[in-house]
């Protein structure tokens, strides 16, 4: 394991802006994605978020496993909802024939509509969150959260655990070597299961011992002396952050106004062909 977090170093606008700005972005996009009940707007939002991701982390945005996973989930939703969604009325036509699976039913246009809507909504939220975690260093994440009211000790704990993962990883490797050197062989699943005890006991014991030492070392350096320690790096909003937040909020407000004026913009009751799913006919 090279990277334990999803953070990708870089120098895009999203790397430099405050982590709280990105949280506002997540909130705005999440609300927008769920405002309307049609696949078109969530698809547009998802594409916008994908572009933002590419701007931020270049090729990583499209090649990482999570992005792929969410795109696959859309397909999954499309198939499952198409066959099973109870809203389904109109059978979809594949080259002149409806498609039916025994015990599940016929593939319907309403199901496809519903599946795509939800798929795009979830992918939008997931990808904007990916933007946050892939452009924000864990330390920044925690600083932002502390600034937003997370107790300092909590934030410190999260950072500490992140830093300990690679250490524990290395330790686990040493322990495996030590037990193999004592004749531990793992040829099959049963032997592998049995070998967990000699691996986990030393790992847990040494982790606990390290925690104890670390806690004492921290206290010896004055940790916990005050509830509100001064920050080493003061987190501040800059003009960049204000522009991003302002545009996100304007977008959100427009979205909300349209929602109250024109309703959910749903055309699920008027589906009669494939093309209809993306545009009211």
């Amino acid at each position, binding site marked *: 394991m090279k990277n334990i977090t999803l953070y990708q170093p870089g120098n895009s606008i999203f790397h430099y802006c405050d982590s709280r700005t990105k949280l506002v972005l997540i909130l705005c996009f999440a609300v927008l994605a769920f405002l309307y009940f049609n696949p078109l707007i969530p698809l547009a939002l998802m594409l916008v978020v994908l572009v933002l991701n590419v701007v931020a982390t270049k090729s990583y945005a499209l090649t990482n496993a999570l992005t792929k996973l969410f795109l696959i989930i859309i397909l999954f939703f499309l198939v499952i909802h198409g066959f099973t969604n109870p809203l389904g009325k109109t059978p979809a036509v594949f080259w002149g024939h409806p498609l039916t699976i025994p015990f599940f039913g016929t593939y319907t246009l309403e199901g496809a509509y519903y599946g795509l809507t939800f798929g795009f909504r979830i992918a939008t939220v997931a990808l904007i969150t990916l933007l946050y975690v892939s452009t924000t260093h864990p330390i920044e994440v925690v600083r932002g959260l502390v600034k937003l009211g997370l107790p300092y000790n909590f934030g410190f704990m999260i950072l500490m655990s992140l830093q300990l993962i690679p250490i524990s990883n290395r330790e686990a490797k*040493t322990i495996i*070597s030590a037990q193999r*050197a*004592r004749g531990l062989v793992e040829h099959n699943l049963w032997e592998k299961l049995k070998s967990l005890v000699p691996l986990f*006991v*030393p790992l847990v014991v040494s982790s606990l011992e390290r925690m104890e030492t670390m806690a004492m070392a921290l206290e010896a350096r004055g940790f916990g002396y005050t509830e509100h320690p001064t920050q080493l790096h003061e987190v501040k909003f800059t003009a960049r952050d204000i522009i991003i937040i302002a545009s996100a909020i304007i977008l959100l407000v427009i979205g909300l106004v349209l929602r109250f004026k024109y309703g959910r913009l749903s055309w699920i009751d008027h589906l009669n062909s494939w093309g209809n799913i993306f545009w009211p006919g």
Partner: protein
Amino acid sequence: MAKVAEVVNLRYVYPGGVEALKSINLVLEKGTKVAIIGQNGSGKTTLAKHFNGLLKPTSGKVFVNGIDTATKSTGELARYVGYVFQNPNHQLFSKTVKEEIEFGLKNIGLKGEALRERLIETLDFFGLRPLAFKQPLSFSSGVRKLVALASVYAMRPPILFLDEPTTGQDHPGKVKIGQMIEKMAHEGHTIVVITHDMNFVSRFTERVVVMAQGEIIRDGTPAEIFADRETMEKAHIEPPQIFALARKLAEDGIEINALSPREMAAAFVSRGLTG
């Protein structure tokens, strides 16, 4: 003497591209006490890990009891090469010392009476019998180290590697480990110690292999090695104080080769330097 292990032209490159070992040739003989010394990063541990297959050569061969280690897993090589890691906490996991020792024995397939016999033999060898039913982690670090050592020695490997056996040990602890090493070597086991503790090396080993930057730069007896100023400087090693004293005396024209304070004192007396 019969050789128990042989390294031929061993070269090892870590996956990251660091060449940790460059063309190592080494023969280990039965029943000897060998120390491998050198700076951190000189390749001592990397070399040691090749003997029980924890690492496989990038090129070259390592033979243990005539077996090419590249063809066997570490678990299978455990009966030929024991390896005691630096931190005993990394290997102790059982409820009692007895179970800790039995773990390795069961792994090499001992059962019933043979297992019981070996267990008792091992407990007696290390003087651990009164502690057999105690929790290994409840002991002081010195005793933990002994338990770890016992749990590996129980398998009676012809070669036994000890990685930094004296780290964190007080003087009695070091002496105890040293005595155990002598006792094990006396039983015909080859003991290889990887250490930075030069006093321990000069007191308890009979052959010293000096490594620097992935190569063996010198191989000889402690007296030869520690008196060799050039090697010591090249490997960035501070010899035991007794050698530093001998060197200072040599500068004043008094040549004494002594491995211990007692020998040094005897040499003073025999040369009439006490007045």
